[in-house]
């Protein structure tokens, strides 16, 4: 059994007091313990940004890599050793801006990884510039007359790309978010959780209060298996829906690459066959 303290790490946490990342960290650790995932069987891969620091504040295997590239690291870990539980965690800037291409294509590959994107609609680490999810008109020290680029809609994009699991959650709702996270972990394939996580220092609009007032949960009888219906809900801009928008289970990347079909050993446990090598070389004689 995994102990409640197994994921604790005795280090100073660098986030601002009140940051949405604190409840996010707490609920992730609790979920991992409740799901009995041992730290040695999990890898947390993060990018750069305030959410990118996540991996430093939780014990276990981790990569804190480059801005935007964490999904590529995560996918290859899963493909090299499908037995590992891989969590790819970063922010909206890292995932949708710097890593936009990797986001689009990781959806296509469909590796069995859980991708949590802390979405606070602002750049925290670099002190308050607009993010790809900032609303039109939001003024910052750089976007002095207000944002005029159309906000990126990760949920709609992921559903349009036929992502195999697409959900939105809010860190202020701990129990509901843990439920979504548990479903994402159980899901066979790529699972996106767009996680509303307020930035208390640089985003004075999208506060905890704002998210409470401007979100609602998809109905109990909502069926997440219809892509067109899901897109429709993803495009709602009044009150924002929370919950699981779309599920489309299909073969995963690890399955499609075939090499684990008859041999489940991870790559590091395999040896080169010298006979096969010699036979390959002799085919050039």
């Amino acid at each position, binding site marked *: 059994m995994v102990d409640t303290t197994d994921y604790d790490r005795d280090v100073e946490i660098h986030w601002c007091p009140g940051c949405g990342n604190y409840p996010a960290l707490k609920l992730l650790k609790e979920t991992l313990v409740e799901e009995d995932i041992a730290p040695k069987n999990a890898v947390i891969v993060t990018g750069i940004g305030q959410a990118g620091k996540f991996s430093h504040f939780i014990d276990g*295997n*981790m990569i*804190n890599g480059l801005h935007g590239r964490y999904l590529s690291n995560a996918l*290859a*870990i899963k493909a090299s050793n499908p037995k590992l539980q891989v969590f790819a965690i970063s922010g909206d800037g890292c995932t949708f801006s710097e890593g936009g291409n990797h986001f689009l294509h990781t959806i296509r590959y469909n590796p069995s990884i859980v991708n949590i994107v802390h979405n606070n609609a602002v750049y925290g680490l670099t002190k308050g510039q607009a993010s790809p999810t900032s609303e039109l008109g939001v003024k910052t020290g750089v976007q002095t007359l207000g944002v005029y680029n159309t906000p990126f809609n990760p949920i709609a994009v992921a559903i349009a790309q036929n992502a195999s699991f697409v959900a939105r959650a809010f860190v202020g709702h701990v129990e509901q978010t843990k439920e979504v996270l548990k479903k994402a972990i159980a899901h066979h394939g790529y699972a996106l959780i767009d996680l509303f996580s307020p930035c208390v220092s640089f985003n004075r609009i999208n506060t905890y209060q704002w998210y409470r007032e401007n979100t609602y949960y998809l109905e109990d009888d909502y069926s997440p298996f219809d892509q067109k219906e899901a897109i429709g809900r993803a495009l709602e801009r009044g009150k924002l829906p929370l919950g699981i928008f779309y599920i489309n289970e299909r073969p995963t990347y690890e399955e499609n690459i075939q090499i684990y079909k008859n041999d489940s050993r*991870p*790559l*590091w446990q395999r040896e*080169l066959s010298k006979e096969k090598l010699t036979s390959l070389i002799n085919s050039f004689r």
Partner: protein
Amino acid sequence: MTIEFKDSISIVLCGAAGQGIATVETLLTSALKKSGLHVFSTQEFMSRVRGGTNSTTIRVSTNRVQSFCERIDILVPFTREAVSHVKARLSSNSCIIGDKKLFQDNVDAQSCIMIDVNYESVAEEIGHRVYSNSVAVGVLAGILGAEREYITGLLTDRFQSKGEKIVSNNIDAVTRGYKLADEIKASDQLPSLPSFSTQPSVGSELFLSGRDAVAIGAIAGGCNYVTFYPMAPSTGVGAFLAKNRLEFGIVTDQTEDEISAINKAFGAWYAGARALVTTSGGGFALMTEGLSLAGITEMPIVIHLAQRPGPATGLPTKTEQGDLELALYSGHGDFPRVLYAPGTLKEAFSLTQQAFNVADRYQVPVIILTDHYFINTRYNLPSLDEEKTQVERYIIETEREYTRYQFTDDGVSPRGIPGKGEGFIRVDSHTHTQDSQITEDPIIRKNMVDKRFKKLELLRGSAIKPTLVGNPESEILIISWGSTFHNVNDAVLELRNKGYSVAYLHFSQVYPIPKSVEIYFKNAKKRIVVENNATGQFASLLNLEVGIQIDKQVLKYTGYPFSLEELVKELKKEVQ
């Protein structure tokens, strides 16, 4: 000074993309090799799928032949443009064998011996002009003395899936070609060509390309993950591994872009795989951020960088050694790395194999530099000595208290992977402590940088020595690196045979270079570097690394490789 080609014949096939020149080349060279003759071939082509003008040079000899010459003994043109495309390489000894409509009125053909053979009309008699390439194979094989049974066997393998009729028509076409060759030989139209003697041992030698050697070397190095975004001339290595992926258990990933390619290779090594990235200069440029990540996290990584002329899109299907400095200085920040540049096919195999062991052992990026010419050149060789290679693994089983960046005497911290042992594998792109926590402490920062550079000194100490050919007391020393080996070596040999006091020094590890290589330079009165680039990048590096001053640079940056004749001519000016 003219070179006498006493023991070899040079054949050039020239035509448009899509006409099947590569098929003729493959069938002819394989059959000649199997018949017991030494064979070399290299391709020069345009960046288009159809049309344009491409050429393949094939050299056949009783003795080993591994270099590129300009001279043409036999030209087989497939288009009207062909003769003019290679006009600089033609002489009164060159013999054009083909449909006279393609060249009889061409001014560039007038000094040559012209033999009219209409491959297409013979093919049509068999049933379709699609068989003209097989007729051409028959004519050339007949003239050169390849045994017909080998071609028959190759054709059967190649066309079996298309049905018996196609196989037998192709065999008929080749047979007709042989008959035409007999008629040509009987007619006395051919210039006097060297006569060959075959050796059965050559027939069973390996016949492979630079692409094959790199890819097989990767497999022998235990490569089980390859990532790439298609880009000439590097794609062939990825395609080779993809073709063999199920046999050897290799994850083969054509990624969304090169940035993803290197970050996936990074993730794969982290999880215990042995990953290769194959790319060219433009793609590598995009990977430099990932290279830097490997630098600070001390992640092994192996990159095959097949160079082509830049900047930017440059000449996509031509050759150059222009990315040495890119490979050397790429990636922000200071960190150690290793650069290999094989000169022979055997070295391409062994260095690529070794790259995986060195990367794993020292936890540094290892880059293998080849180029278009090297990748697309083929010759026979006795063996790769694969039984002498070993997949060396340096992954440890971790304890619970494991720290990834433990300080050690030699700077190498034992590397664990997730799932092997009880420790946690924590890897961080920031400056970090021994247990991978972010830090801004100036003392730790300095110690971590120093730790990484201790490894550079280890790598320098164990660097592969350059190859010296000739007398170390020679007055003149010619220096080159990477793919130019055979061409320069043959040119230097030619000069030595003419009585010049010349030695040749070739580097297949171009970084780091140990100070001890000074010894090779000490007797030479004149040092000449030969490079396929515009600025003499290796000459600069030698000066920086070892303090060696180069007296003269012979540089070429037209997009084409150095030929034997051109090197003899250029070097002779310098050795007078």
